[in-house]
């Protein structure tokens, strides 16, 4: 049964790959933040008037952010303080409760933004402003500058 064998070994490779993937939290959190950045970009294009307001796209942006917020703290396990080009601040591990509260607030604010479902550009501006304030507040406390 060569095909079964191939399937099994392929699965093994996939499992190994996903384990390796899960063991690189720095890469995971950077990908997660890039997704949030992409959502912020789509929101900002509408706010700046580069693209017309689209209620579905607005909702999708908040949904992406909310999805990311749910697993976000798990990407900062003990032992991932340094490495790669991480810009995570040591304060994430020194003040774990504060960090988790900041992420929880992001989750709450994005959930509220989804529930509010802004129907026009002015409503969207206000809702997005509230959500985006989380970026700076959290980055100020828990991110270091590095270039």
């Amino acid at each position: 049964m060569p095909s079964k064998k191939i399937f099994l070994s392929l699965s093994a490779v996939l499992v190994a790959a996903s384990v390796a993937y899960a063991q690189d939290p720095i890469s995971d959190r950077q990908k997660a933040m890039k997704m949030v950045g992409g959502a912020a970009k789509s929101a900002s294009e509408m706010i700046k008037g580069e693209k017309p307001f689209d209620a579905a796209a607005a909702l999708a942006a908040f949904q992406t952010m909310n999805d990311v917020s749910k697993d976000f703290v798990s990407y900062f396990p003990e032992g991932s303080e340094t490495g790669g080009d991480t810009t995570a601040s040591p304060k994430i591990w020194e003040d774990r409760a504060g960090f988790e509260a900041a992420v929880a607030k992001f989750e709450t604010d994005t959930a509220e933004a989804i529930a509010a479902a802004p129907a026009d550009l002015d409503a969207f501006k206000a809702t997005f402003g509230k959500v985006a304030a989380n970026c700076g507040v959290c980055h100020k406390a828990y991110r270091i500058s590095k270039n």
Partner: protein
Amino acid sequence: MKRLLLALVANGLIGGAVFWFLTAPQKLDESMFAAIDGHEPDLGNGETLFWAGGCASCHAAPKVSGDAKKVLSGGLVLTTEFGDFAVPNISPSREHGLGNWSFEDFSNAMKKGVSPEGRHYYPAFPYASYAHMTIEDLSDLFAFLKQLPVSEEADKPSDIAFPFNVRRGLGLWKKLYLNDKSVISDAALGDDEQLLRGRYLVEGPGHCGECHTPRSLAGGMQRSNWLQGAPSPEGEGRIPGITNGPDNLESWSESDIAYMLETGFTPDFDSVGSSMADVAANYAFVPASDREAIAAYLKIIQP
């Protein structure tokens, strides 16, 4: 032997006298204040300068947001290689803040780094930048600060290492690094109103160079490396260069820079961190034309 000892003592005395003379705190010339005779303080402009100058980033209580940023109770501790600087209360409290200050006191603090009692301030307070501010703007800012809420929070003591704890030595530092001469010359800017405004905001109230310009061993901004980026003054990480160079802002348009100052978002929708997050939060309250002026100025700075 006795003669040697005498010579040493004499040298010591002369050296001490010279040091004392060179390091005396200098105040502004009285004639400076003639410029605001009859000047009616403009609170709107005062508020713009309050945000542009980032007063709240250091002087509000740590971690506050919203209207609480206008309560300038102090309390933040700046941890640097020179020591730990406790930021003072500058709310209008008569006992703990600047409630009893005259406008001359305020101007001497901002432009000369000298306290009302005539002592040197440490340059953790960025007076080497604020020295570029006009006396009219200081008058507007002072009027704005005077009407903010009072906090009765007492100042915490600073903990500064020898020899930097000898305050008088700052007189020498000021001889080297404190003046109101522009970094980028008038000739480089032509008569461009927007560039002149940008220079004023960046070199003066915005005090961008304090973090983005590398410092000499004695802790002064190296004007020859203006805005080239530097180690973080608070230890962690590195402050990026913001010249028009390849690794700096070359790929940013002026509107990218202005948008980052307003929202904290970079062109690839990263959101700026550490103390720049505060700067962006503050500059959201500054007129768009000022953010654009800063962007225009930064785009002409060569690496």
